């Protein structure tokens, strides 16, 4: 089947109007030797059949969000209020383009303006853009901002407590720029060691809050040390944690970025997610991405437009702050709706539920003879468990015998962290689930 409305009579009339004898004649500029290749692809299906097929394929997956899951590491199983999905399905939001024509795009523009405002409130910052692709690319864009803002400095310091994939993305993005990227050689997030690397060649230092191991580090010290040497400080933050924890803006962070997936966006096997990006007003002209500003129309009534387009690729071309064009608009809308419905009190409660449940789980696991939890620093919703054997094997047993998805195997990304499991607990994990998980861990220890 197809989504094409043309009848044979329509096609005939249109070809006549154009003055060609057949469809093929429209493609005379295409080199004949390569024209109309036979594609080795199947015939089309009806919508019914395509729907059945995809249902069948999807049913071979184990939907992690529907079983007890203790896996996080940058993507989290948080509750999504039903209203979020319903708003996203409004065709006027879903099927519109980037709001280049503000008179017919006030819905998208005002929603993004509200999103920007809520991100500022959450992070304690002054300006937020309309989104990046994800947390990793937000961090990469933060590096670009720093390099463009701090003159003649080419060194970037990344804590090893930043998500390993984010650090990989920064290196991919900057491979043609001749930067020096240091700070993440080891596998222990150590504020003092990080501070020791800041010098007068440093453009930016970045830490994660809470870090990849779930720990709440003293990022204030890092921010102060960066400023003392004239460098910018960037904090990669978990937005749910910011429901409870002090915002990095309060300590003077210059850039706060992060993965907004927790704000009403489903796990969806890693995407589409939401990169949020907030900074100080003095850097707004160096910031990448779309930005919505308030203004008035010809009648003097308030309205919203995309603004500071002179930073962007469609105006500045090779001199633009970034090449970003399409971003994650609908995901920013999801976050705005989520933050609205959760509100001042709801987000705090979600964060507290995560905190208390994670600590309950950590305490219970720590009571097991063969496991120990790292309590050396405060943590939020994730913590590191030293296991008696390989995490991969434990997870296999947890899945096969108990249908529980265990935590992240840290050895995959930090080879020195043998038998260490990163356990994530959110408001979605009930006490019964946690108890079952702890019991199962005990039983699969050997």
């Amino acid at each position, binding site marked *: 089947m*197809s989504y*094409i409305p*043309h009848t044979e009579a*329509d096609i005939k*009339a249109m070809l006549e109007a154009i003055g060609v004898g057949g469809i093929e004649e429209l493609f005379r*500029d295409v080199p004949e030797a390569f024209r*109309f290749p036979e*594609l*080795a*692809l199947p*015939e089309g299906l009806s919508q019914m059949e*395509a*729907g059945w097929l995809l*249902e069948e*394929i*999807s049913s071979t*997956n184990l*939907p992690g969000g529907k079983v007890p899951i203790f896996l996080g590491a940058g993507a989290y199983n948080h509750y999504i*209020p039903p209203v979020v999905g319903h708003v996203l399905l409004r065709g*006027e939001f879903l*099927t*519109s383009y980037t709001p*280049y024509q503000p*008179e*017919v795009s*006030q819905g*998208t523009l005002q*929603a993004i303006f509200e999103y920007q*405002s809520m991100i*500022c*409130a*959450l992070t304690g910052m002054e*300006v937020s853009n309309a989104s990046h692709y994800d947390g*990793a690319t937000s961090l990469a864009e933060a590096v670009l901002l720093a390099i463009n803002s701090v003159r003649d400095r080419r060194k970037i310091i990344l804590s090893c407590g930043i998500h390993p*994939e984010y650090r990989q*993305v920064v290196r991919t993005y900057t*491979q043609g720029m001749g930067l020096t990227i240091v700070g993440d050689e080891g596998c222990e997030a150590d504020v003092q060691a990080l501070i020791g690397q800041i010098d007068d060649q440093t453009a930016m230092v970045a830490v994660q809050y809470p870090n990849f191991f779930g720990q709440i580090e003293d990022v204030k010290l890092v921010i102060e040390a960066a400023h003392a040497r004239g460098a910018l400080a960037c904090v990669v933050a978990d937005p749910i944690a910011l429901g409870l924890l002090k915002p990095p803006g*309060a300590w003077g962070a210059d850039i706060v970025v992060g993965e907004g997936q927790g704000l009403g966006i*489903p796990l*969806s096997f*890693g995407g*589409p997610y939401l990169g949020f990006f907030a900074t100080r007003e003095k850097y707004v002209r160096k910031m990448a991405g779309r*930005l919505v*500003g*308030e*203004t*008035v129309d*010809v009648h003097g009534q308030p309205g919203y437009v995309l603004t500071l387009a002179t930073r962007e690729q469609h105006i*500045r071309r090779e001199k633009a702050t970034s*090449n970003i*064009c*399409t971003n994650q*608009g*609908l*995901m920013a809308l999801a976050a705005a709706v989520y*933050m609205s419905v959760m509100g*001042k009190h709801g987000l705090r409660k979600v964060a507290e539920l995560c*905190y*208390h449940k994670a*600590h309950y789980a950590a305490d219970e696991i720590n009571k097991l003879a063969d496991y120990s939890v790292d309590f050396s620093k405060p943590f939020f919703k994730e913590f590191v468990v030293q296991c008696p054997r390989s995490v991969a094997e434990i997870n296999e047993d947890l899945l096969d015998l108990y249908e529980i998805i265990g935590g992240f195997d840290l050895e995959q990304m930090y080879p020195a962290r043998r038998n260490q499991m990163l356990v994530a607990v959110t408001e979605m994990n009930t006490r019964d689930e946690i108890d079952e998980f702890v019991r199962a861990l005990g039983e699969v220890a050997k």
Partner: protein
Amino acid sequence: MKEPLIYDLSSPGREGIQLPAPDVPPARLPAEFIREDLDLPEVSEVDVVRHYLRLSQLNYGIDKGFYPLGSCTMKYNPKLNEDVARLPGFVALHPYQHPDTVQGALEVMYQVQEWLKEIGGFAGVSLQPAAGAHGEFTGILMMRAYHLSRGDTKRTKVLIPDSAHGTNPASTSMSGLQVVELPSDPRGNIDMAALCQQCDDTVVGLMITNPNTLGLFEEHILDVVKCVHDCGGLVYGDGANLNALMGIVRPGDLGFDVMHYNLHKTFSTPHGGGGPGSGPVGVSERLVPFLPGPIVEIVEEAEDETSPPVYGFRMPEKSIGRVKSFYGQFGIIVRAYAYMLVNGGPGLRKVSEMAVLNANYLRVRLQGVYPIPYNRINMHEFVAEGRFPDAEGIRALDISKRLMDYGFHPPTNYFPLIVHEALMIEPTETESKETLDAFADALLAIAREAHEQPELLREAPHITPVGRLDEVRAAKELVLCCRPIPVGKDT
């Protein structure tokens, strides 16, 4: 219009959601890290529903009407796509689940990789890039890495025609390379003499949009490719305009080395008011080792016809690295797969044929009234000028704004930069002849108004939720956030 800001609906103490009471004993909070206040709205659920519904009503989308935004391929977004992307077996998958538990998701990704390879004529595809510009950046990084891996360090120039999307030069400079702009010839093709003059051993490659942003298929495409290849350069294809080419010609067959696909254009996934998109890249044989990863491969062949193969992730050996976390915009990839399945191979060719038919029909209906600077058979879009010699002061913007009063979304304005007062029109294949006729009639009526009642255009739009907005003021008196900066609190 005036829908208040969500914050203005706020009332202290009001809550939009009830959460379960804690079922575990409370733990001690680390006081030094706890924030005092969180400045989010305090509204009820119904407040939120009505607020965002009313905001949605201020928007125009494809679901509401015709959206001929050039180079954006605003085709109908099938509802089936939305439903299948929300199946629990897709939407509730954690990206770090064991591969054994996500074989269906990997199968979808593998199939989309294979379909895209076949459609584009490429040897390898990575689904990682999140949008078109992201795919471009990825492509340029691969081209750079390819030359460097051969010890060919002199190459720093990327050739880009003056009709290119702005993302092309921006992606190039992000890669630390230099942009060299190429002029167009009088028929809207790349100026061959200028191209060949630039082609030397410092060229990384050429970025070409074909059909170009005038909607024209490059008449000397094989010569263009040869000229670049002969000097050791590579050819990058901007796939934003792939909707003209499916089953018509495969860019890989023409010698293109890299191309990105816009799943949110060609493959019908919704634009969402500015994303999420998805910008996979396809590459020729020599660039396969450089693809960003991980990509999906068959790690164990099927035992027999009834059992499926085993899929897994692999990082290409000389990969430029990851360009985002996890594996790409999976939910968008599922939607695109649903679209591919429904169309099938022959259906995709029909898509391109009808897209090109529609664009040519509209061009013919407007020619003679609207100047069309490169008036020849075009592909899926064309560019008219939004000005008339005998209606002074009327600009493309006025015509666009007036179209809103007729119930249509305007075309792309002021792009490509090489056409004065450009109106770039891309109807797509999902629009009927009746819709195209109604749109053409509106544009012809507006042309008459331009001469007889020009103020109708200059003051347009008249029926939209707001009138023309003061963009200068927006940029000058920056108001980007409606909340006071938290001073003194939480410090």
